[in-house]
């Protein structure tokens, strides 16, 4: 074994008084070796990003500081180094890539200029040599037409291209250690697969040590050599990727792995012949076409047809920009549509005004993506849930009584009623959001990415709750998600959307077994950790270890 590039010894990071715990991380021991990818995995609030910030001396001082331990990098203790010493290391010896490349790039400078700046500050190469190096770097991250991209501004690039440019910048000075903090979380699944490949290839080529921070076990399976699992600031398990994923020792690791939605063949269900409750015909929606000066329109929905039968769950799957959320908002009439028909049990609601729409609102309710943004921060939970019935004429006393019953139904304590949303965790807030949607006793529930903002263990609970409620109240559900694994688990039928159009729709088992459209097949192939999950679903003696 080689000596580690970075040796983290008993690292503790102190939090200011009043935080939910005294230390962000406590006594973390971690050795990052050359040529290896170490994944640090944990749920939100586990302190995983704090470790990365501590290494680079980027903790939000003075409130958060290193309380103990050493960070040995090339014979120096990074915990004790001064700011000028850290500057010489940061960027040159240790580089970092972030979750959102748009905020990490300067929007006013071209990609080439930003790369040039790094080379100019840290090296003595001449202008022409720097230019060649820039083009070589952009080429090495597989960006098409490096000469043109060097002249492009960050906003002219796609999310994946921006992340590639960030990686080129991070690797420009051939650092010994690369820290990647959730670098693919903001990307679409097909782009994510490409970026993971790229990081893996470049890391092998240069022998760089990589600390990869993530919350996704699928990503871990795809990229890691070794894994460290962080729970509430303590390392509960670490080891080789095959050991940790194949034979997890700690109960926390086991529960996390069990909660990962499986890319498993769904049971074949008989086709529903129940009556249609939602029928969309040739729905049209374009953005940005209106206004005084016109402007180029983006077609978010192009002649979309959608059918939802009573009691079934229809999954709408697609990448960002595919129009799936627009479809959800069109069906609930939260936004006007430009054309087509939306039939709720036979009534066309596509052209109704807001006042005319009001009586129909009871029938179709929505659960939103972001549990932090979808609840009014100034309302008590009981008022949030009771609001719908009160709007529709129920007396406040009765509505509040019903709201208390709903709290129990979604698995919240009655004492939650008098509290404010900020006192709850993300999963609990999503339960409140579900209770609000149920308060009007709808027939149809439209769920727009209801679990994508949640930790994986909470995700499983919310999905179970939705399934339970749907069965008990005999709801029909339109379930929008970017995660095929989740869609396989909860949906009877799946519609795959791309660039505003439905490219394929069919029973879940059929879509999984024999996707007809090449795009659907590409989506399945890009699911992180697909190989690992297929291996995991086979008996144990057949598993191969990398």
């Amino acid at each position, binding site marked *: 074994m080689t000596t580690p590039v970075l040796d983290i010894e008993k690292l503790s990071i102190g939090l200011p008084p009043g935080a939910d715990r005294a230390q962000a991380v406590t006594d973390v021991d971690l050795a990052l070796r050359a040529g290896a990818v170490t994944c640090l995995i944990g749920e939100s609030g586990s302190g995983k990003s704090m470790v990365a910030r501590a290494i680079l001396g980027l903790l939000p001082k003075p409130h958060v500081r290193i309380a103990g331990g050493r960070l040995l990098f090339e014979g120096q203790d990074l915990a004790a180094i001064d700011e000028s010493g850290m500057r010489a290391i940061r960027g040159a010896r240790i580089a970092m890539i972030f979750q959102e490349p748009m905020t990490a790039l300067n929007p006013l400078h071209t990609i080439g200029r930003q790369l040039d700046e790094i080379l100019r500050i840290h090296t003595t190469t001449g202008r022409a040599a720097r230019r060649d190096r820039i083009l070589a770097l952009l080429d090495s991250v597989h960006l098409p037409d490096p000469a043109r991209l060097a002249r492009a501004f960050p906003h002219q690039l796609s999310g994946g291209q921006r992340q590639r440019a960030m990686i080129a910048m991070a690797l420009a000075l051939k650092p010994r250690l690369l820290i990647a903090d959730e670098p693919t979380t903001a990307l679409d699944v097909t782009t994510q697969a490409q970026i993971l490949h790229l990081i893996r290839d470049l890391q092998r080529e240069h022998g760089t040590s990589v600390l990869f921070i993530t919350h996704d076990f699928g990503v871990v399976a795809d990229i890691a050599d070794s894994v460290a699992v962080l729970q509430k600031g303590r390392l509960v398990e670490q080891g080789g990727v095959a050991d940790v994923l194949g034979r997890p020792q700690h109960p926390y690791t086991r529960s996390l792995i069990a909660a990962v939605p499986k890319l498993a063949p769904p049971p074949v269900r008989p086709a529903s012949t129940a009556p249609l409750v939602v029928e969309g015909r040739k729905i049209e929606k374009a953005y940005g076409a209106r206004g005084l000066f016109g402007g180029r329109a983006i077609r978010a929905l192009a002649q979309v047809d959608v059918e939802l039968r009573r009691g079934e769950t229809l999954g709408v799957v697609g990448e960002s920009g595919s129009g799936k959320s627009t479809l959800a908002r069109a069906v609930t009439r*939260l936004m006007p549509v430009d054309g087509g028909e939306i039939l709720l049990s036979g009534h066309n609601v596509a052209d109704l005004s807001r006042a005319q729409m009001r009586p129909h609102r009871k029938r179709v*309710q*929505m659960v*939103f993506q972001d549990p932090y943004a*979808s609840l*009014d921060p*100034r309302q008590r939970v009981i008022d949030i849930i009771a609001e719908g019935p009160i*709007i529709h004429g129920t007396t406040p006393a009765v509505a509040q009584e019903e709201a208390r019953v709903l709290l129990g139904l979604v698995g919240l304590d009655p004492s939650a009623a008098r509290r404010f949303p900020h006192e709850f965790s993300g999963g609990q807030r999503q339960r409140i*959001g579900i209770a609000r949607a149920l308060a009007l006793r709808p027939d149809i529930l439209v769920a727009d990415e209801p679990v994508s903002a949640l930790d994986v263990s909470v995700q499983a609970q919310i999905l179970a709750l939705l399934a339970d409620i749907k069965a008990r109240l005999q709801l029909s559900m339109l379930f929008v998600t970017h995660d095929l694994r989740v869609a396989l688990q909860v949906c009877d039928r799946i519609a795959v959307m791309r660039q505003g159009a439905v490219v394929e729709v069919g029973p879940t088992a059929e879509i999984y077994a024999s996707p007809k459209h090449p795009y659907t097949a590409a989506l399945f192939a890009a699911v992180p950790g697909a190989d690992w999950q297929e291996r995991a679903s086979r008996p144990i003696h057949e598993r191969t270890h990398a």
Partner: protein
Amino acid sequence: MGAGLARFARNRMALFGAAILLGLLLLVLATPALFPGDPFRLVGPALQPPGGRFLLGTDTLGRDVAAQIAYGARTSLLIGVGATLGAILFGVIVGGLAGYYRGAVEIVLMRVTEFFQTIPAFVLAILIVAILSPSVTSEIIAIAAVSWPGIARLVRGEFAALGGREFILACTGLGASDARIIFRHMLPNCTAPIIAVGSLLIGTAILIEAGLAFLGLGDPNVMSWGLIISAGRAVLRSAWWICTFPGIAILLTVLAINLVGDGLNEALNPRLRER
């Protein structure tokens, strides 16, 4: 809101400002007891320097400067608070309508707002008072009329940002009316910035009032700080105290209001708060 007040209490400069304001408020309440009678009354020889029988001296007509300042404080606070409330009411209506309905409504309302912003505030205030004839009411109207555009733009921005938030969308989904969304959900969620900016407006209003009174556009029958300065400016070199003490009163009051306003801004506005 409770956490915001706790943060405010940790800000020493803001507490200092609050202490000055509290002192001013006590002075206003105690004025009838401390200085019984009309502040316009002649009580002693003219141009008495401070420190003698009259704590802050007397003016050219032999009126007690201390009494004038105490009565002037009442006028200044009344006009400052009154004009600010008027500006907030009007600004919230205009900004709220523009930010909520967007489109043509927004274009028309915001162009009107910008039109008001391009006219120098003080000149417009002079014009309005001159048209309405000088009185406390017309001063309040004039100052409110030049102060509302800032509030309108703030509220429009807040409403526009809130309009895209999911909880507003969720309310629309429940079938809520426009009025319900505006008054139950949007306004309560932008009270903090309105309070913070509004508190700073009081200081500006007091300054404009003093300026108007100095130019003789204040209510001639109501004592105010600007009026004292205006009366004393002819003897500035021989009787410095007449202009100096009301000047200090204005300085301290506006400073205190700004400190409190900044403190409120920091405490209530999460964007400015350090993480």
